[in-house]
């Protein structure tokens, strides 16, 4: 598959965005909102922010929205499904970690039963990745398997790499990308020097990520030490809110409730006590540290056992926006040392 590569400048990128809009695509890209970077619908190219580490929210907000109406009941009690309107969408500037998160969501929402609401929103979406040249200190995407890294292109349809101050290497990755690259009027064909520059950028981006995690070893250590006092100790700092799960690009838990004549599906979090409370009142995860442990295990043990992938993409959002700065990387990477230290100590109160 000959992947056509072009080099365009900022203006070319703006022209590309307006071309996409003219072709009926809604373009969703990171923009500034209340002086923070959020994914949002952009009207013109200049709103697409290019100098940022990662947006606070992730494409999950658009593929699996915080609340959606799944069913509506008409007056004569017939059930009417409410499917999302089919709208052609382009996610522009998706970091490789968010793209891998979307792949995980695809897998979960089509595990045996196809979640039609998710598939309808996902089906028409084109992903245009943006390579990470300056990863943050809280990023650790390179140790999460599946070849994930700051310049990883496997899960997107097109890939943008910022070569220098104002020129971007744009390449089609999938057929969908091939079709779209024709919209680019301007821009010059990429030469081997551009490829070398891109490769060089990729290497030192990967070098900038100093946090290393041995996934399989962590999996084994955690799988064998579910009841260790380590989990109660590291969980003390966690206040039990839902920020980490709601801003996490891979967290997919939801609740379904009826309001009036609508059946609504909306985000839920395993950090809340009601999440697993039985009708009889019994709650398997009644204490805060059990709920905390459940989130960490779901990402590094459970999802791996069920769908053989780690459910974390190392984007660092849960640490950045946590009120107590709970760092999942620190907890998981120090699990082995921490657990052995607690094997001798009596469980602290």
């Amino acid at each position, binding site marked *: 598959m000959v992947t056509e590569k072009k080099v365009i400048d900022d203006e070319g990128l703006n022209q590309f965005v307006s071309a996409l809009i003219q072709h009926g695509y809604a373009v969703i890209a990171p923009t500034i909102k209340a002086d923070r970077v959020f994914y949002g619908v952009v009207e013109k190219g200049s709103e697409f922010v290019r100098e940022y580490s990662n947006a606070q929210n992730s494409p999950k907000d658009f593929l699996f929205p915080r*609340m959606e*109406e799944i069913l509506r009941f008409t007056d004569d009690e017939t059930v009417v499904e409410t499917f999302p309107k089919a709208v052609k969408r382009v996610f522009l500037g998706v970091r490789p970690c968010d793209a891998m998160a979307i792949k995980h969501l695809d897998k979960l929402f089509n595990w045996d039963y196809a979640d039609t609401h998710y598939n309808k929103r996902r089906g028409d979406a084109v992903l245009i990745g943006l390579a990470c040249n300056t990863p943050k200190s809280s990023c650790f995407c390179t140790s999460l398997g599946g070849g994930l890294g700051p310049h990883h292109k496997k899960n997107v349809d097109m890939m943008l790499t910022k070569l220098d101050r104002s020129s971007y290497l744009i390449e089609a990755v999938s057929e969908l990308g091939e079709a779209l690259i024709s919209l680019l009027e301007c821009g010059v064909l990429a030469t081997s020097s551009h490829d070398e520059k891109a490769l060089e950028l990729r290497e030192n981006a990967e070098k900038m990520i100093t946090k290393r995690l041995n996934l399989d070893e962590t999996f084994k250590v955690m799988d064998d030490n579910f009841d260790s006092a380590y989990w109660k100790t590291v969980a003390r700092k966690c206040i039990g809110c839902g920020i980490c799960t709601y801003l996490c690009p891979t967290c997919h838990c939801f609740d379904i409730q009826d309001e*009036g*004549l*609508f059946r*609504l599906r909306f985000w839920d979090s395993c950090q809340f006590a009601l999440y697993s409370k039985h009708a009889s009142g019994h709650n398997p995860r009644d204490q805060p540290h059990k709920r905390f442990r459940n989130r960490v295990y779901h990402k590094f043990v459970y999802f791996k056992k069920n769908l053989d992938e780690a459910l974390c993409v190392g984007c660092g959002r849960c640490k950045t926006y946590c009120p107590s700065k709970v760092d999942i990387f620190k907890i998981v990477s120090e699990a082995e040392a921490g657990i052995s230290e607690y094997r001798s100590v009596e469980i602290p109160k």
Partner: protein
Amino acid sequence: MRKKEFDSIDWEPKIIGFLCKWCSYAGADLAGSSRLIYPPSINIIRVPCTSRIKPHFVVKAFATGIDGVLISGCHPGSCHYVNGNYKARRRFSVLRRLIEFMGIDPRRLQMSWVSASEGFKWADVVRKATEEIRQLGPNRLFIEGET
């Protein structure tokens, strides 16, 4: 609940009345037995004391589209439970300013002291409350299905 378009003359506001059973409920009963005429806009809920009313009841009423809430209890000093009405007074004076701050017109939450012998006063209180809430129009805080 479909909301028709109203002009304020013939539209009858829907008011929830929390009445303490020792005084105001008896007063309302007296008003009824002495055949006093007052607007049928009030739907009475009997409570043991005004301090039994949880502010969440009032807010839930507004959420379900009720146009006004009237809380009525014993005069200060003659509460069957000695200080129930004092506590309620303090509670609802805070709540009233809070709902005003968030954009609900405070006149939609009214409070009155009506004793068991004040049938006339009860009829008058309801007449005044209905008139005042009628000026405010229907409760359009939340549009149905607005997610």
